[in-house]
């Protein structure tokens, strides 16, 4: 099982790499993880700015955005003092690209790309990924897909404006949106991105199956590794469906086929079935790593074993399995046979159960702990709090009759931001937590706490009132809410949400300062600064090429905190108590 890992640890000498092979075309999983992180954070800033522009338009419709006047017509109309007014077409492009970027170019590269790459080999005691060259290729294909996606901002007609869900027929014919190359490039970029993720997924699965250190049975793996392993399997099975659907859409647009166009015998709902057959597992691809990381952090900082380890692992497997048979809940009012809606409601209600199990087990982990409210712990708790709201609000739309009313309203927008944008809390938790192993220095804790408090307050300020708007019937994806008499009385909430969102965005400056300052001037990190059990903390800091001095042997699970066997309150997975006890006896 672990021969290659053992062989790798014995490598020893490596020639000093050049700048290009070290920073650009690195084969080292740790460097590839860092590359994904930097690209993901850059895209997070772009995606965030797009969201701010959307929010501006919703709070102060058709009033000039300061500083936006430099963009030419017809994309932006000039306003006074260098401001620019967002026209409807640009508004549609803004929210389309916001969602596309956040999902495919922020959460996936960071939660799966960065932490999958950086953590899987270190946490299972392997020297690297199973296929280092494939790993490098995965990053570079991903980077090219990002460049293609961003380039669509600069083509005539602007970027895709058909929503991130790209529903046919709107997305299938240029005349319906007026966007030609923007939509083509959107399709091509997502296909490339799918290829990148597929290469990553194959690598993760092979690594976890074949390269675990001696003693690292499946049920000794940390839940972070479990979550990434399950995510990789979902990626492997879901992405080809999206890629196929995208290819059909591209043919409809460019080659005159009619897969989704009724005038040629096609079926618009086929796109929705294929898109959501990928799209719902995709939600769990995004959220499962956040759940795994949160589980590990809650246990570490409660100084207590994770509550119900097997229940946690099996609930993730259950979620992954059920995620294949719930896609129709996105289509209750699409015109799909209503009887099918009933069936999908049942499966959707069932998938709420493993999610509930996870939340209760997190609570059980906190119970009786000795809780250290470090910055990563605060963010992990923030994730739990948001996931709780996002999970509970999902029950409303699972009920088919209630969904008739709230479908396509801000209630849905609130729900998926609590789930998907809530992942940003797990993302920050993970960055603060593993920063010492990734960059060999500690991030600043007081600055991190300020960042947490501001992010938590204004995240809720931005997303919670969206439930009220949704209950009032406020549709999503509308350009100007003041065009509707029944929405106008709720307009104060739109203004409140926009202020919260703007402050939420501005608060991220504390993270940026902390991140870059710590990168160069943070306190030098020890090997195991959090007194954690998992193997990455047994590796030296900085971890060398090949990660471990000697291949670790694993004696126990990852959660032996406050074990009566030792005096300190942690017990690393690779600590050999047998020989120490024997040495004492002599």
């Amino acid at each position, binding site marked *: 099982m672990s021969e290659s890992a053992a062989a790798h640890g014995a490598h020893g000498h490596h020639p000093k790499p050049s700048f290009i092979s070290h920073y650009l075309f690195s084969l080292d999983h740790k460097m590839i993880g860092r590359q994904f992180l930097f690209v993901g954070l850059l895209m997070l800033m772009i995606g965030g700015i797009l969201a701010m522009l959307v929010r501006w338009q919703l709070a102060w419709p058709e009033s000039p955005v300061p500083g936006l006047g430099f963009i030419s017509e017809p994309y932006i109309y000039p306003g006074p003092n260098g401001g620019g007014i967002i026209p409807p077409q640009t508004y549609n492009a803004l929210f389309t690209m916001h969602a596309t970027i956040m999902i495919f170019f922020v959460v996936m590269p960071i939660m799966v790309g960065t932490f999958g790459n950086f953590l899987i080999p270190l946490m299972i005691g392997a020297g690297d990924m199973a296929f280092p060259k494939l790993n490098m290729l995965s990053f570079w294909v991903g980077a090219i897909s990002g460049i293609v996606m961003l380039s669509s901002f600069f083509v005539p007609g602007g970027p895709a404006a058909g929503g991130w869900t790209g529903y046919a027929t709107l997305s299938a014919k240029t005349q319906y949106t007026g966007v030609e190359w923007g939509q083509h490039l959107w399709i091509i970029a997502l296909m490339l991105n799918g290829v990148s993720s597929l290469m990553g997924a194959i690598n993760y699965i092979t690594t976890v199956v074949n390269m675990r250190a001696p003693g690292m049975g499946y049920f000794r793996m940390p839940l972070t590794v479990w979550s990434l392993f399950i995510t990789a399997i979902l990626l492997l099975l879901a992405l080809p469906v999206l890629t196929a659907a995208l290819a059909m859409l591209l043919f409809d647009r460019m080659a005159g086929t009619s897969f989704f166009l009724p005038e040629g015998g096609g079926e618009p709902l086929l796109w929705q079935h294929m898109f959501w057959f990928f799209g719902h597992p995709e939600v769990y691809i995004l959220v499962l790593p956040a759940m795994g990381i949160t589980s590990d952090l809650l246990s570490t900082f409660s*100084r207590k074993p994770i509550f119900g380890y097997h229940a946690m692992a099996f609930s993730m497997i259950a979620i992954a399995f059920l995620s294949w048979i719930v896609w129709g809940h996105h289509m209750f009012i*699409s015109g799909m046979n209503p009887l099918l809606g009933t069936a999908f409601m049942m499966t959707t209600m069932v998938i709420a159960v493993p999610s509930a199990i996870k939340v209760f*087990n997190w609570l059980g982990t*906190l119970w009786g702990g000795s809780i250290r409210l470090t910055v990563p712990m605060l963010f992990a708790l923030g994730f739990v709090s948001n996931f709780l709201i996002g999970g509970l609000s999902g*029950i409303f739309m699972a009920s088919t009759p209630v969904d*008739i009313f709230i479908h396509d309203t801000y209630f849905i927008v609130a729900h998926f931001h609590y789930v998907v944008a809530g992942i940003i809390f797990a993302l920050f938790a993970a960055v603060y937590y593993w920063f010492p192993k990734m960059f060999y220095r500690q991030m600043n804790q007081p600055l991190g706490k300020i960042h947490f408090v501001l992010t938590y307050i204004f995240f809720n300020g931005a997303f919670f009132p969206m439930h009220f708007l949704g209950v009032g019937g406020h549709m999503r994806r509308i350009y100007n809410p003041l065009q509707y008499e*029944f929405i106008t009385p709720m307009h104060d909430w739109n203004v409140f949400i926009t202020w919260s969102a703007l402050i939420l965005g501005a608060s991220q400056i504390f993270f940026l300062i902390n991140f870059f300052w710590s990168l160069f001037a943070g306190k030098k990190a020890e090997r195991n600064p959090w007194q954690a059990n998992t193997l990455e903390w047994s590796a030296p800091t900085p971890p060398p090429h090949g990660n471990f001095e000697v291949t670790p042997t694993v004696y126990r699970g990852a*959660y032996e905190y406050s074990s009566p066997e030792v005096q300190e309150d942690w017990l690393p997975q690779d600590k050999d108590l047998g020989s120490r006890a024997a040495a004492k006896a002599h």
Partner: protein
Amino acid sequence: MLRWLPEDVSTYGHEIDSLFYLIYYITAATFVLVTVLMIWFLIKYREQPGRRAVYNHGNTTLEIIWTVIPAAILIVLSFMSVNTWAKIKRNIPASDFEIQVTAKQFNWDVVYPGADGKFGTPDDVKFDNDLHVPMNKVVRVHLMSSDVIHSFFIPNLRFKQDAVPGRTILTWFEAKKAGRYELPCAELCGFGHSGMKGWLNVYTPEDYQKWAAEKLAPKPQ
């Protein structure tokens, strides 16, 4: 939160609203329970010198309890939803009041069948973005689209149905109260999506007769 719900004027809206309220109370109670426990644990079990965390890997009885209870609640919710869903979307009641609505970028074309009761005949009467119906009458809508997907949404009726190009979807509603209700498109349909809306005019039977006599009567050739 639910005070923001628009006034319900449909015959089946109260069933949707009562499910909405029920789920709201269940989820709100769960939210409060979990949040209070979390905050209590964070305070009670904060790190204190000399105290060690409990060494505990879990509890099977608790796992079973918090698997079975949510599962039972969710199954009950499903079964409560099934009948309302069937009533609204599956069992379309019979009626002699039929209209045809065709969505297109960015209008609702409304067609009344005229005196012969058939669509596609010369006596059809067409309106842009305006529906006129009597109260307490089942209205059957033949919903179509001529370009992209739109969604026919009347918040006050708790009514929503996508209009899909290439097919005709039969759906229905019955309004209980006379008035003028907004009818927005709820599915992104292009740059003019925002502002694509019509009005549903619900009349008392007498007022409807008057309106129909004036607007639906056969025009002299």
